[in-house]
């Protein structure tokens, strides 16, 4: 199996406070990984470092993506190389329609692959196909990016963008937060439909319930800047049953 993302002993700090204290994680093609952990454990910091947002200063370790040092690439290069971040809080961009936004993004990706920009006709066709796939309201694409979207619409819109850009590695940061059960199913369905043998997904979540719909191959528990436990999908269930206190006690040696 081909290695997609290889994180080795990654350390990062925000203003001298160490947030990530040596993370090691291997993600191969075709795998779905879930990273779980309580608030403040470093989940979002890890996701943003892979995407290229410099929230924290990297103080040690490495991230290799498809054999390349990820730190050599700026955020848009990482995107074009196939890394997609589903935002925990999708950003509103008033005045810029989803159609224009996606056209700009998609054509950058195509340019990177040496392809011509899509014609208006082909673009709209693709837009329709992907809209159906993720069951997004067709009117949303005529509105400004995330502006005035409900919480659920914003999250669905992230999955829709993922469908349009067909990433190799998708990192979904708390995509389930703030979703009712119907929206949760739609989001999970979208992710499952987009799963292929040659891509990989990292699902970051606080709760187990998303993992009823997206079945992970591996579950990692992040606590206080470290991956303290890894296992199969049953680890998520155990965690749900016993709560994060269980992990806390294990780590603290109680």
């Amino acid at each position, binding site marked *: 199996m081909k290695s997609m993302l290889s994180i080795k002993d990654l350390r990062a700090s925000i203003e001298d406070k160490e947030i990530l204290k040596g993370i090691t994680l291997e993600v191969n093609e075709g795998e779905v990984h879930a990273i779980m952990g309580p608030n403040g454990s470093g989940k979002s910091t890890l996701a943003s470092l892979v*995407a*290229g*947002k*410099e929230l924290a200063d990297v103080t040690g370790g490495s991230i290799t993506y498809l054999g390349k040092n990820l730190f050599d690439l*700026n*955020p*848009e290069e*990482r*995107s*074009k190389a196939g890394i*997609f*971040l589903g*935002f925990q809080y*999708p*950003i*509103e*961009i*008033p*005045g*810029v*329609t989803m159609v*224009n*936004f*996606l056209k*700009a*993004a998609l054509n*950058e*990706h195509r340019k*990177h692959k040496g392809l011509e920009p899509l014609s208006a006709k082909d673009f709209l066709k693709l837009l329709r196909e992907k809209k159906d796939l993720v069951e997004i309201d067709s009117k949303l694409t005529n509105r*400004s*990016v995330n502006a005035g979207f409900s919480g659920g619409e914003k999250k669905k819109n992230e999955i829709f*963008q993922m469908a349009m*850009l067909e990433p190799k590695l998708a990192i979904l940061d708390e995509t389930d937060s703030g979703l009712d059960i119907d929206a949760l199913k739609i989001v999970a369905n979208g992710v499952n439909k987009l799963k292929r043998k040659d891509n990989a997904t990292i699902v970051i979540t606080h709760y187990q319930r998303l993992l009823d719909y997206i079945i992970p191959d591996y579950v990692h528990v992040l606590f206080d800047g470290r991956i303290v436990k890894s296992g199969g999908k049953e680890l998520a269930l155990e965690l749900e049953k016993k709560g994060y206190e269980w992990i806390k006690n294990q780590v603290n040696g109680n």
Partner: protein
Amino acid sequence: MKKEQDKILSEVTGTDYKYGFYTEIDTDTFPPGLNEDVVRAISAKKNEPEFMLEFRLKAYRHWLKMKMPDWAHLKIPEINFQDISYYSAPKSQKGPESLDDVDPELKKTFDKLGISLDEQKRLTGVAVDAVIDSVSVKTTFQETLAEHGIIFCSMSEAIMEHPDLIKKYMGSVVPYTDNYFASLNSAIFSDGSFCYLPKGVKAPMELSTYFRINAANTGQFERTLIIAEEGSYVSYLEGCTAPMRDENQLHAAVVEIIVEKDAYVKYSTVQNWYPGDMNGKGGIFNFVTKRGICRGERSKISWTQVETGSAITWKYPSCILKGNNSVGEFNSVAVTNNYQQADTGTKMIHIGKNTKSTIISKGISAGFSNNSYRGLVKVVKNAENARNFSQCDSLLLGDKCGAHTFPYIEVDNANSIVEHEATTSKIGEDQIFYCNQRGISTEDAIGLIVNGYAKEVLNKLPMEFAVEAQKLLQISLEGSVG
């Protein structure tokens, strides 16, 4: 991160202005200085009739008694009017006769600016009056327009060929006593464009004036006069550029528009004078008086401007809505970056009954710049059922720039409705990162966001101009957010 920002900033700001070249041409240039003899000399150079010289002298004498205005939200360095040359003309130019008479260097200059003076080469059917420094070098499509009875020529030619129209209309909307820069312009204006549309004639193509400052140490002082008789229509475009120089140069123009019953004049500007370098050195001081009068019933004036250039912009294209049911519009996008300053807006004067005006102003500030909207909506006592809607939005990039709004509302009629809306927003790093994460570079993200923000106004521009303006907005703001 900070270093990266500074790097991007310095890389792009130095090379942005692609119109900054200078053309080596033989010129006939007056020595610097301003006095009555200079005013007389300009008039003599152009073989003007006596009435024109009198108009100029009255204006000059009035100007001497005036003081530079200081009410705008601008820091204007002292301008020494004796250091400026008030007339500079390409030497070989004898008058706008045929294209063969135009100096090849000049033709090349305009080709480089994307303005072809060769009618055969023009695919888009836009008639151009090309003004370089103090004179009009060529007006295209004059014959085609003349077949429709439309007069489109340089101001110098109009003064010679159509003195009655000039006598009747020049100074009728912007009198020579109007303000400091209008008075100065009235005294020493050297050329400009003239357009007359007879009754019922709709211009078959768009008309345009392209202003180019080329010579050093000169100012450009031109006048434009548009007269639209009953039921006529014209869409008029104006573009401006200048070479990059360390010294500031002065541009003080006057535009007057007269619109009769059921006529409509749409006036669009893309102002891209050299804005100065990233440290605020050099650039054009742009002091312009633009005003139109809707004289007849149901007449309409629409001003659309995209202001990206100039070190200082002082400009308030206005409408006097005299005819009943007449309509005035002002749509503006003003961008300031680095150390640019802009104080721009409009005046809508409602005099007739059921008059309507709309103001849409979109300010974009970046760098260390200051961008002000200043607008007056005035409704006189008898202007029954007058309506105004104003929307003034400001967009900030970074935290070292300023956006200001100065709306003035004077309403003396109880049946009128005046609405004013204002918003201020900021392009955030989060928005940029969101775009980056989808593969869109920072520069393109700013372009996307700014064009989305200014869309309402850009949509009002004629097609060809709109594309140009979109690119220009993006270029003007390159490197302003890291």
